[in-house]
């Protein structure tokens, strides 16, 4: 006689498995992104050192594409994972998370593209040079163009982090709850970190910029690792409880 799992429970197991895979891929993405923090000394050193420039080009070609592919794959797993979690009927909030995870990056990236295009047009318009030095665009207008996109993505990450924390609390997997908490902290720091790395001249965060980037990246890395382990254990717990419930039902 073939065993049949209840559809509600199997969706949860499926969802947690996909979320684990997404976390593993996110961990790999964070790991590959780490060299970019220390490998190059910033635009100034690239301009001075042709070897650094060559290394940067190779890094962008090889690692950049790999990071992009891994990032997209992680996102797809996340969307499918929260989709299954929504269908499992555990929480209505997971359906909102599904939408946030799906639409947040789409809207955020679209806003960044539009902002980038507007920034490019403004740079073309005010591309005059003063005393031999390029006349920079006002920082405020740069921030106004990129900030909305970054904030939309950060808010989507927050919703996702809260849901992961909730799964950790429900399944009583401490690693997952801890990973989600770190993920939330990393999400809080993310827009600042991205702004700091985008505007080398902005002196955002002053001398603490490099330190801030490292902390933020380390937090993302640790969060992904804990989430991967946590979702795996949570999945095991759900499978166990399903088996127990099924056994009780059969008895």
């Amino acid at each position, binding site marked *: 006689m073939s065993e049949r799992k209840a559809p509600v429970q199997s969706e949860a197991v499926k969802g947690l498995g996909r979320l684990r895979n997404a976390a593993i891929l996110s961990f790999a993405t964070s790991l590959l992104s780490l060299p970019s923090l220390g490998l190059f000394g910033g635009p100034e050193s690239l301009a001075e050192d042709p070897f650094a420039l060559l290394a940067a080009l190779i890094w962008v070609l090889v690692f950049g594409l790999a990071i992009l592919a891994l990032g997209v794959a992680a996102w797809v797993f996340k969307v499918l994972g929260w989709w299954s979690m929504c269908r499992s009927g555990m*929480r*209505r*909030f997971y359906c*909102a998370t599904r939408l946030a995870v799906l639409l947040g990056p789409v809207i955020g990236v679209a806003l960044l593209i539009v902002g980038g295009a507007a920034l490019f047009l403004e740079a073309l318009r005010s591309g*005059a*040079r*003063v*005393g*031999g*030095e390029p*006349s920079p665009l*006002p*920082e*405020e*207008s740069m*921030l*106004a163009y990129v*900030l*909305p996109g*970054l*904030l939309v993505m*950060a*808010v989507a990450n*927050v*919703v996702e*982090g*809260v*849901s992961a*924390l*909730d799964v950790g*609390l*429900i399944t009583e997997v401490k690693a997952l709850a801890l990973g989600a908490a770190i993920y*939330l902290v990393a*999400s*809080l*720091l*993310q*827009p*600042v970190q991205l*702004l700091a790395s985008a505007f080398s*001249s*902005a*002196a*955002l*965060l*002053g001398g603490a910029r490099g330190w801030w980037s490292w902390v933020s990246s380390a937090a993302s890395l640790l969060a992904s690792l804990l989430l991967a382990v946590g979702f795996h254990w949570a999945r095991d717990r759900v499978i166990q409880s399903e088996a127990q419930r099924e056994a009780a039902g059969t008895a």
Partner: protein
Amino acid sequence: MKLSEKQLVLLSAALSAAVVAVTVAALALRRPAPLPAAGTGYVALIRIEGAIAYQTSQLSLLGSTASADDLVQLLDAALKDPLAKAVVLRVNSPGGSAAASEALYLKVRELAASKPVVAYIEEYGTSGAYMAVLPAARILAANSSIVGSVGVYTSVITYSGLLEKLGVRVYVFKSGELKDVGSSFREPSEEDKRVLQSIVDGIFELFKKRVLAHRRLANASEVFSGRPFLAEEAVKLGLIDGIGTLDGAVNLARELAGLPKDAPVRELKPPSPGLLRLLLGAASLARRPVAPSVEVLAMWPPPG
């Protein structure tokens, strides 16, 4: 510990608000980019861009606006800073309101009396913008720039026909016959036209006097016809001193101030608008009216 659906929503909202707060706080705490070392002195660069107006709206009938208050403050800062040995005014403006342009003119005159001022017209340096830079020791312009348009105009737009079609009636109670001169709710009377024309003529006379006080014109009647000129013609007519580049204007300012050739250039900028104002700027524009019936020292039609 398990969270309810409501608690999850509240937690997400609170943390999302925290993301925005942390980002805004980090931006507020950022340090300004270091300025080039001034040493014994520097050339201050001030941009006069867009229509000159007192209102702080970023848009008007004449395009984007340059706040006269901000510009006067910048000119004042250059005047008071002993290290600002010379000032370059980088102009790209079709002009603006008579009062705002006059305020700039007076401040530039005060500045030019104490240190060398060089004006560089990049695209447009017409009407009120031209008047504002008249006291500069030298006026240079890019080859394809448009200069002149020395004149004044005012326009009255009436909606009486439109309101009548909509069935809207406006009753005006006034203390004197000409209290509502230039009103949009009725057609201007002959007396209205006479009053408005005399105001325009009065401001134009003032403008003419200032041009004649600062420039030696080759053909005054052509200049005062109100037409704009290309830079080359403007040089021939005596409206400007020469054609050049911004670098040339900066070097000339250094030379006039006795500064070394590598003396730094510092751009003086108005205080940054708040992030909220930047993000909500477009929405707040709707609340700022643009009065059509002000005397305007601007090129007409405004550059698109």
